């Protein structure tokens, strides 16, 4: 396998990105999808994937968002959005739910991020702005606990600065926890050997390398 450059196209749209993440979740996995964009990954899981969704507020076997008469104030996801229950679901209290996370029982969690470092450090809970009210929720527990942490984000901030960085400048959520980074411009695997680009979208590896301060490896490259 070698790195694939998808050049005849622009960056990935949000739906395409979610579909890419969904593709990489092994069938039958136990998965927690973070609040916001990660939630949309669920819409792209193939029928019969057998993926079981966990929500940290105490449920395995979470179904899609509830609509109309399905809405039940007692059944919400981590974003407090009404959801539904699938066959084989179970409920448990918060200490049990986070024991499940912290104990390494979830196969994958998918999170958003402000920054990811070349070592896999994650910053996604606090902008560091002095007047911001800090709020962490379950972000640190997920980053620390899941067997694999997938991050999805745009590769560049609105001002063009990269969000994949040598060292995070935002307050950290977790150390060396991110294993895969899905962005609109490229997919990266992060491990002990560094950052490996596996796919690019509307940008070559060379272009990517010129815009990032992080050393990049590619698949199938002779080094």
């Amino acid at each position: 396998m070698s790195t694939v450059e998808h050049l005849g196209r622009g960056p990935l749209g949000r739906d395409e990105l979610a579909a890419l993440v969904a593709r990489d979740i092994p069938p039958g996995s136990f998965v927690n999808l973070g609040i916001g964009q990660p939630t949309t990954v669920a819409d792209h899981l193939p029928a019969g994937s057998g993926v079981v969704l966990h929500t940290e507020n105490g449920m395995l076997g979470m179904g899609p968002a509830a609509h109309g008469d399905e809405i039940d104030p007692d059944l919400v996801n981590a974003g407090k959005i009404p959801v539904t229950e699938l066959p084989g679901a179970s409920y448990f209290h918060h200490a049990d739910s986070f024991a499940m996370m912290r104990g390494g029982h979830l196969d994958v969690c998918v999170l958003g991020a402000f920054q990811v470092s070349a070592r896999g450090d994650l910053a996604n809970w606090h902008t560091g702005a002095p007047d911001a009210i800090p709020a962490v929720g379950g972000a640190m527990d997920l980053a620390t606990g899941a067997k694999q942490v997938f991050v999805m984000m745009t590769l560049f901030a609105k001002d063009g600065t990269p969000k994949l960085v040598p060292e995070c400048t935002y307050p950290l959520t977790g150390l060396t926890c991110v294993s895969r980074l899905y962005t609109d411009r490229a997919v990266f695997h992060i491990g002990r050997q560094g950052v490996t680009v596996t796919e690019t979208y509307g940008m070559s590896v060379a272009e990517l390398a010129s815009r990032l301060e992080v050393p990049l490896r590619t698949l199938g490259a002779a080094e």
Partner: protein
Amino acid sequence: MTAAVFTDPDEAVAGVADGSTVLIGGFGLAGMPVPLVDALIRQGATGLTVVSNNAGNGDTGLAALLAAGRVRKMICSFPRQSDSWVFDGLYRAGKIELEVVPQGTLAERMRAAGAGIGAFYCPTGVGTPLAEGKETRTIDGRDYVLEYPIKGDVALIGAHVGDRMGNLVYRKTARNFGPVMATAATLTIAQVRHVVETGALDPESVVTPCIYVDRILDLSATEDSR
């Protein structure tokens, strides 16, 4: 002692002392015991430390308690929400102290209080600002932060159904912090949608055994039975 059953919220919260640490259940509004919190406002206890996942929504329940100036300190995981304007205003005005705790660590610290654990080494938050100043230790090659119990003087929780002895069952994700908080407080007050006779709950399905419940507020007599 097995639980005492109340139908009047004001009687159910009688005796909460100024300066108490109050654990308040719920995740957002799911499982949030609004009638008990409203009664606590009327009861008047002040200088409280409140432990709850969020820091109030809108203008009711916990937000109203905050607005009434009764809370000295919030311990929570996620104070900042789209509708947490009451807390936001107090915080920015320097009128309330805030301790932010990762959600799982918050739950586990209360579990530790209920389970007689003196402290525990937790991997969550290592290397982050929330671990600053905390003792750390490397065990089997992994880094941990030492975390201490959070014990409540009072817990206010919302359950689904209770029996006359105080056994509780919950409903769906409204279970959340209730069972843990019930174990961690000296005085646990649970509101339930209705009370059934002892023996009517399946012993295999009881989530909070009656030993943890001191008072039950039966909402079926009021219009708050939702």
